[in-house]
């Protein structure tokens, strides 16, 4: 009764606080039976093994790429010092373009922008 009789702004704060707090909102604890517990463990194990494999594969590929860059630069240094100097110039101010977007779950209505107009500079 007393809660209902407070003014509107106080009531709003009370509501906000109750939306934040855990009281009466928590679900029952998961008490899995023995069989389900082992099943869950197996699922988790499989996921961990799977992720480990994926990460290993990525790591191997990145290492190979790094080695390949290193070899290319080593070779370029031998073949053409000028080109090497240009290729090894640090690009400190270079930024990734905003047009490079991260993938979405579903494609946009027009999956690709074809009508690109080159700027004046390039011509």
């Amino acid at each position, binding site marked *: 009764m007393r809660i209902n009789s407070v003014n509107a702004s106080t009531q709003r704060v009370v509501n906000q606080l109750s939306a934040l707090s855990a009281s009466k909102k928590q679900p029952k604890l998961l008490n899995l*039976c023995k*069989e389900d517990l082992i*099943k*869950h463990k*197996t*699922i988790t*194990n499989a996921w961990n*093994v*799977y992720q480990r494999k994926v990460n290993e594969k990525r790591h191997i590929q990145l290492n190979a790429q790094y080695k390949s860059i290193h070899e290319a630069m080593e070779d370029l240094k031998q073949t053409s010092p000028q080109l090497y100097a240009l290729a090894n110039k640090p690009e400190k101010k270079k930024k990734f373009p905003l047009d490079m977007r991260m993938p979405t779950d579903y494609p946009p209505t027009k999956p690709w922008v074809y009508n690109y107009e080159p700027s004046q500079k390039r011509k």
Partner: protein
Amino acid sequence: MISSSYARPLRYLGRYYSTKIWSDFSKRSETLKLIDPKYEKDLLQGINPDQGPNSLVQPDRRLAYHSPVAIDETFKLAYEYLEGESAKIYAKIDDKKSVEETDRLLVKAEQYNPEVLFNIENSPTQIDREQPVYRKYLQEKWESHDRMLSMQRLEQLHVIPDTMPTLDPKVEVKVKFPHNTVLEFSEWIEPGTILPAFAVDKPPTIQIQEFDRVAENSLYTVLLVNPDTPDLETNTFKTTLQYALTNVPLSNSNNVVGTAKLLDDDFAKQHVAREYEPLVPEKNAQLQRACLWVFRQSSGEIKASIGEEDNFDIREFAQSNSLEAIGAHVWRQQFDRSVNQVRQEYGLPNGRVFHRVRKAHPVIPAGTSNVV
């Protein structure tokens, strides 16, 4: 279920590859199967919601149980994936690999098998200890609790360094006195417990669990010493030997020295180097520690018998016989009303009685005359 042969089980002859490897027992041990077959359907095929899981006992609780959504479908895919990975590992095992390498690969191939996990979680006493994967899980369990507890007690009660200087525990040592008819004393004893004399008046059952593969013909020594026997001449303590087993052959699965073995006359003759005599503390002589040490015999059989000297030097004994300490256990005793009866049983004279109050007499160095 548990094979008692000491021979090395399970070698994989030739290359072997099957994607349904976890349901194929032609080359894998039968002991990797679910021990209790009544759980098989619930675990591998899914729980029927109209009957509920088998592991819950009460019918109403069984029906009221709800599995997480989509657990069975996910489990099926996970099982297939892990089984495939396991088959790949089995394909790597051949006869050229060393024993350690084979064991390592066997652990890797079976460690995620849900049947193995279920066995180790729910029937840890019935598992086959010859299988490296089970030993690995046993070791993890031991290291996560029991090893820490026993080392804490051994340190707190000064078993190290009062008997042996230090301990690098390799085996799990469990002790119980199965002749007891009271539940409190008939279970496995937690290290450091204070026990009454009647609870220890018959020799204990000792379990020594090795976690690495035990080499053939490896022998063990077990010594029970009491470092708190009063020595009135010097006003200090001396160590007495209460029980000694030597040259005991043990394996991963055959690892208990208990009633069944002691009943055998040959065993008693060959391995009991000193008959069991329980600790019988005298009145007001305070708590005494019964320290049980387990040694690996690194240089074969011990031939010499143990002398009857008054003060037993366990360090010297271990060094002269090149024994490696691998595990220990401790319990405590003090004078209680059953001590006199135990003394009578063992034909011991009546115990001395000491003053209740501790006096300020200094220690008398050995060799000086006994003048207080």
